[in-house]
């Protein structure tokens, strides 16, 4: 198992390196000059040239890339071009808010999707089933930038139950998390329904029922345990969507996370800051998928055996 985890960890390095190379090249090849956005148009050409030299932006692209990799290897993400703040500090300041938002969204999605999915499967082809699937369809179809303001108008303006925007107490996270988690909840509801439907006819469930277990226990304890496996896979894959969704959700709700930071950085052509943010997001995505892979093996003993066999020398 340890070898399996180590091997998966080793595989993340080329993945992250690939992402960083693509980001570096894209940023430097698209039009837009960071020095122009830093100094403004009023600056003298000589001052612009001096700053370009000071920031190392006058060197050829491959030299800049190698320098960047060198610094990255030492854990130095550089300084933001616009604020001169260390990139790591800017990320450290904003990342907790994003983690909070994504984790709560994930929890919201799971808490909504699993019961709804089970209900839809247990009451297959009834009004409950159709109702759940309709909700799932709505969840997938509504874009964040539309659902967010809608939720604000309903819960914050009409009912005055929750704050409109910003970051603060626990109440502030509810609407952004609902907005961000809705699409994932929709996907998970459909997945749960399909997986539970799949196992409902299995022999072991018939046995459980024959033993006289209550239906709720059969569904939540026995059916769900096996139905969970495909769900965990989807969770990992969807985490990336959650992170990119966070960028829009954070902008709507004035949520001071890394998504808002990266948008501002892109607009200002703040290369080190964009690179740093993307690195963190890519790392997050890769790590979550690693955790999911490990969880997957852990939840399903058959896979664990396979993984152990595979890593035998």
């Amino acid at each position, binding site marked *: 198992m340890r070898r399996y985890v180590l091997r998966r960890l080793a595989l993340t390095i080329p993945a992250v390196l690939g992402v960083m190379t693509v980001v570096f090249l894209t940023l430097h090849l698209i039009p837009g000059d960071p020095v122009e956005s830093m*100094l403004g148009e009023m600056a003298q050409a000589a001052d612009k040239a001096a700053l370009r030299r000071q920031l190392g932006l006058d060197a050829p692209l491959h030299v800049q890339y190698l320098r960047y990799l060198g610094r990255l290897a030492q854990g130095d993400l550089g300084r933001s071009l616009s604020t001169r*703040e260390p990139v790591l500090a800017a990320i450290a300041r904003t990342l907790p808010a994003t983690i909070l938002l994504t984790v709560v969204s994930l929890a919201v999605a799971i808490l909504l999707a699993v019961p709804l999915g089970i209900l839809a499967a247990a009451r297959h082809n009834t009004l409950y089933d159709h109702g759940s699937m309709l909700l799932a369809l709505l969840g997938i179809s509504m874009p964040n930038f539309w659902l967010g*303001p809608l939720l604000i108008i309903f819960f*914050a303006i009409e009912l005055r139950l929750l704050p409109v925007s*910003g*970051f603060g107490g*626990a109440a502030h996270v509810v609407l952004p998390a609902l907005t961000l988690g809705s699409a994932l909840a929709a996907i998970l509801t459909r997945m749960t329904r399909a997986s539970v439907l799949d196992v409902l006819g299995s022999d072991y469930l018939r046995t459980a029922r024959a033993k006289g277990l209550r239906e709720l226990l059969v569904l939540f304890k026995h059916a769900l345990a096996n139905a969970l496996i495909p769900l965990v896979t989807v969770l990992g894959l969807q985490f990336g969507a959650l992170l990119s969704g966070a960028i829009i959700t954070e902008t709507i709700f004035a949520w001071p996370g890394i998504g808002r930071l990266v948008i*501002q950085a892109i607009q200002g052509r703040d290369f080190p800051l964009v690179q740093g943010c993307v690195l963190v997001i890519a790392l997050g995505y890769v790590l979550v998928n690693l955790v999911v892979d490990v969880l997957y093996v852990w939840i399903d003993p058959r896979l664990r055996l396979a993984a152990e066999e595979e890593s035998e020398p």
Partner: protein
Amino acid sequence: MRPPLRLGRLARALCLVLLGMGLAACDGARSLPGPSQGVLRIALDSRPTNLDPRFALDANSSRIAQLIFNGLVRYDERSRVAPDLALSWEQPSPTTFIFHLRPGVRFHDGRPLTAEDVVYTYTSLLDPELASPKRGSYRGLQEVTALDSLTVRFTLSAYEAPFLGNLSLGILPRPAPAGDARAREGMRTFPPHADQRQLIGTGPFRFARWVGDDALELRANRDSFEGPPKLAGLLFRVIPEQTVSVLELENGGIDLIQNEVAPDLLPRLRRNPALRVVTGPGTNYSYFGFNFTDPILRRWEVRAAIAHAIDRRSIIRHLLRGLAEPATGLLSPLNWAYDGEVATYPYDPARARALLDAAGFPDPDGAGPAPRFRLHYKTTQNDLRQRIALVLQEELAEIGIELQVRFFEWGTFFADIARGNFQLYTLTWVGVRDPDIYYYTMHSASEPPQGANRGRYRSAPLDLLLERGRAAGTLEERRAIYSEVQRLVAAELPYVSLWYSTNIAVMRTTVQGFRLHPAGDFMSLREVELRAD
């Protein structure tokens, strides 16, 4: 059956993580002050990047820095230079200015303002090590000397009329000698991480704190030399989405929004009895720019035809909801140097078609679909800009010009415009104060990267006038020169003037005494008070 047990462990771990995150989020320091503490809450659409006046470039940073710092002079509402920290000044020779400071002014930390602080501010600004983006504007400044504790002398290498206006830069206190290097490094970084003791000025509000990454709190300076503000403090909240900031305003989460309101939302806001909408003339100037290296656009008849084809009044009425005034040139009627007696190009498609015919661009099939010629027009992805672009496309099609519209993300768009990679574009000049802006935007020596003559427009008579305007001594002399400049530019059409944006503020009715400043500054916040709900 092992899996259920594992599910339980997983759920417990998840709950613990959530609990931890929840506790972290409910940080007590996040509690934001509001009207009950006499604090006015204002929405900003983007985060100010640096409040140090030597670095403040974006509009929000500059406007907030104006509340914390005072300059030697300030611009009045007609963009004339007026005294601020300097009581008076004299000019013994064309290249020497002597300023007499107001006595009894104190910084927020209680230290008295002296000539040494003025010397420090400008010497540090000119220090290449500091890499201030504003250094270029002070290239003519040779030396700053303290003559006594309240008198300071500025020596220039050559006289330039706009120099006096540049002295509106906020004055910082001179740090203790050992603190110099730290101050320099501190000020270059983002405020939450800078040595915040450095954000000390003489203005009506003093820096209090950044709350996280998205809110900035200022407290009233009770010892301000202009008298104490009526508010206890200000809270600026960064809310990027205009719709959301409007909803916050309706809900009582903020008290004031200035200029960051989509025109379409106004009817709804005007109907709300808890809100008050105030409008006033503004100086921001929108224009249509031409590329003079293009053989078609170099023809005056083509530029004039385009000017006659644009129905500005209709765009203002329908798309901008009346929140603009047709423009005649870069300087608005609020500017001391404004001259409105210039050539104008009223909406007249028939005249536009005649001009194009005369220029040798006949319409190949009359009212048919084939155009006389095709032009590429670049603009940003801003929603309103996109809608305006579509109207312009229709209007130019009327006179037989096919306008191919391309929308770009801001950074890409701006890079293209600066490089001269365009035929037509629209942009807005923000914060137009000194008429010397004509030199920067239209003198032949101001082609990027030297300046902002993006259209590569060249006019020897205009160059001469602009050089004379820069060298002129008195306001009357300058006024006469810039009258000529405005007439010449309106006649030659390097830009088609579109409109001056009207300033707008939407506030809760509890906010009393807020006045709109033509440049959109926050200066009147000093006189604002909050009435009980």
